[in-house]
């Protein structure tokens, strides 16, 4: 599979589902202001609280949906986040509507009726938004210990650094350097792809993604900026080129080592799996 190129300008699909709550709860704001104008402080307060809770809930639910979409887009079968955004959002919305139903209307529904509204809101949110993807139910996936939220952040940062290296390399005239930088970025991308396929590797490659890749970006950008100011034929220019060449060699070695490490990890996992299977078969008397 070809590595998908990261495009920071790529638009996220519109989250229409997440907008519904903003629209539905919006009338509470003018209603709260009118109540305040008429001197009904408790009613105004309840409506204001309901509005604020509904807006917070809508924001959290949208965040939950966006994380889920991101996980689907990147083929990550993971627990979306340590925070259950959509469930928390639904809870806040239910609380907000409970307050509005009880205190926010002149003919209030009373505690029982208001509680029924809250339960209905929870049910509606569950049906309309879902609370969590299937990842949570899968113990293997939950046990890995990295959530979609962290993973997406890690991968996005790394992609940003790769793109920055590519952009900086366009300003470098030296063909050899540009070729080597191209190889480096494609190597780094293939590491990202390995991690997307098997996020267990994310923890192992974290240092590479965060520290080394960022170092490579800084050096490349620095070289792209300064090499034009230094005359190419002079001693300074030669030293700069030699230093940059040495750094590129180091980066290439690090990328190779990282790829090797990920491969070895996968192989050793496979070894363990084979051993466990063999033990199991022996124990059960098949072999």
């Amino acid at each position: 599979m070809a590595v998908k190129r990261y495009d920071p300008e790529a638009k996220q699909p519109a989250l229409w589902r997440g907008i519904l709550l903003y629209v539905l709860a919006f009338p509470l704001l003018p209603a709260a202001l009118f109540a305040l104008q008429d001197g009904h402080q408790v009613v105004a307060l309840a409506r204001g609280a309901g509005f604020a809770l509904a807006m917070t809930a809508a924001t959290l639910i949208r965040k939950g949906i966006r994380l889920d979409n991101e996980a689907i887009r990147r083929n990550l079968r993971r627990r979306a986040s340590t925070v259950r955004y959509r469930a928390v959002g639904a809870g806040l919305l239910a609380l907000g509507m409970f307050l509005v139903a009880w205190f926010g209307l002149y003919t209030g529904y009373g505690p029982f009726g208001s509680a029924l509204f809250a339960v209905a809101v929870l049910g509606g949110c569950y049906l309309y938004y879902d609370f969590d993807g299937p990842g949570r139910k899968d113990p293997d996936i939950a046990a890995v210990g990295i959530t979609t939220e962290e993973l997406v952040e890690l991968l996005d940062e790394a992609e940003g650094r790769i793109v920055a290296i590519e952009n900086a390399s366009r300003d470098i005239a030296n063909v050899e350097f540009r070729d080597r930088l191209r190889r480096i970025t494609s190597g780094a991308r293939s590491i990202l792809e390995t991690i997307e396929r098997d996020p267990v590797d994310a923890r192992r490659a974290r240092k590479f993604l965060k520290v080394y890749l960022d170092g490579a970006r800084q050096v490349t950008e620095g070289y792209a900026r300064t090499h034009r100011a230094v005359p190419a034929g002079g001693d300074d220019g030669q030293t700069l080129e030699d230093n940059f060449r040495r750094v590129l060699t180091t980066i290439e070695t690090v990328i190779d080592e990282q790829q090797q490490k990920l491969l070895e990890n996968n192989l050793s996992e496979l070894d363990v799996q084979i051993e466990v299977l063999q033990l199991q078969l022996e124990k059960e008397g098949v072999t």
Partner: protein
Amino acid sequence: MPKSLQRIIGFFILLATVGQLSCQALIAQAPLVLG
């Protein structure tokens, strides 16, 4: 239950609860504001 049906039911429940309460709050205010 199919996902789309679930969504439609959820949509109407939210409309009938959140939408109803907020509109009720606003409309209840209308006579006071206009009068």
